[in-house]
């Protein structure tokens, strides 16, 4: 009886807990400023260039009550890289986004520019810079080490100041490392409001349209 009772008591612990993958949480000092900038805009419109993340949609809806465009450019980049057509990507990106100039209050680029060659990056950056409305903001991260990229990152917003990067496989491409002055030139019309070099050698940058 005693033995039976003790087994019952142990049973909840004995149940095998599913091995949850260890998730990295990255603290961000720049992302809260992006949120704050967008929140100050009346009826903000957000453009997310990453894959759709349900919890992010909920987060932005709760915090910003915004309109959000989800345009997964990583999927487009992958389809071009898969068939080795990086030149075709340039022409594609020139017409890919249909949002009007001065229509967006916040752009989330994540680490997209690491996967684009310089001409493609330039075409996209100038297009995005024109889309950002006065007072609006653009958030992006830029790697500083020339490595081969084998993963894209689906970034989950864990809280205002912390992000959870979730990698998923990519056709390997060399990272495009951009100098800070090149990045500033690419986003002509925007100014760098905040820039932080993270421990991961990634530069987190916030642009604003004055």
């Amino acid at each position: 009886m005693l033995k039976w009772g003790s087994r019952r008591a142990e049973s909840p612990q004995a149940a095998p807990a599913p091995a949850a993958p260890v998730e990295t949480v990255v603290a961000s000092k720049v992302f809260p400023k992006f949120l704050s900038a967008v929140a100050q805009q009346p009826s903000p419109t957000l453009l997310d260039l990453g894959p759709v993340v349900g919890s992010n949609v909920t987060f932005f809806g709760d915090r910003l009550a915004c309109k959000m465009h989800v345009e997964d450019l990583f999927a487009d980049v992958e389809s071009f890289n898969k068939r080795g057509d990086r030149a075709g990507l340039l022409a594609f990106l020139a017409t890919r986004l249909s949002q009007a100039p001065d229509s967006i209050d916040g752009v989330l680029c994540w680490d997209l520019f690491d996967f684009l060659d310089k001409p493609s990056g330039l075409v996209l950056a100038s297009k995005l810079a024109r889309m950002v409305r006065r007072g609006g903001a653009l958030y992006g991260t830029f790697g500083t080490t020339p490595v081969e990229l084998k993963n894209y990152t689906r970034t989950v917003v864990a809280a205002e100041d912390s992000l959870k990067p979730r990698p998923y496989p990519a056709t390997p491409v060399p990272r495009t490392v951009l100098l800070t002055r090149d990045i500033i030139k690419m986003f002509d019309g925007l100014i760098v409001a905040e820039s932080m070099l993270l421990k991961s050698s990634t530069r987190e940058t916030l642009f604003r349209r004055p």
Partner: protein
Amino acid sequence: MWKRDDAVKPAGAADGPRTETLRTSGSDTVSTGISGTPGTIGKSVVIKGELSASEDLTIEGQVEGKVELKNNTLTIGANGKIKASVFAKAVVVQGEVTGNIHASEKIDIRDAGSVDGDLASPRVAIADGAHFRGSIDMQRTGSVKPAEAPKPAAASAPAAASTPMAAASAGSPVTAPKN
């Protein structure tokens, strides 16, 4: 043997005593939930045109055109394929939708769900693994703004009061009338 009735009954039909067959294709039915259970459009039913109802509805078949359930919940089941504009109180997507969805309360895209179109609702939930392409409008027009309107400070600073932060900063020096 004792389950023979169940085998004959179409998959989509409601279990209540009264079901109304609107149109059939093959062995499937369109049934309305007169007895209180949600109506179901069965797997092999194809509807082209405008579909409206004043009760909860589950679509397992195909609908092209417009679906309107203003005060009720629409569920697009795992087999459902919709090419339509959808208007409902709440929409749950487990199947495929091509078209815009407007919900006055909530849109919920489940992990096997797929939407190509624009969403408009104050609450939108998209599960991991769901496919979505389009825009999401979560602007709470008509629910938040009337609550802010009665503030006298907002009236005296109309341009600045359009955002909560601006209203807060603009409001403090203006109000405080002296007695």
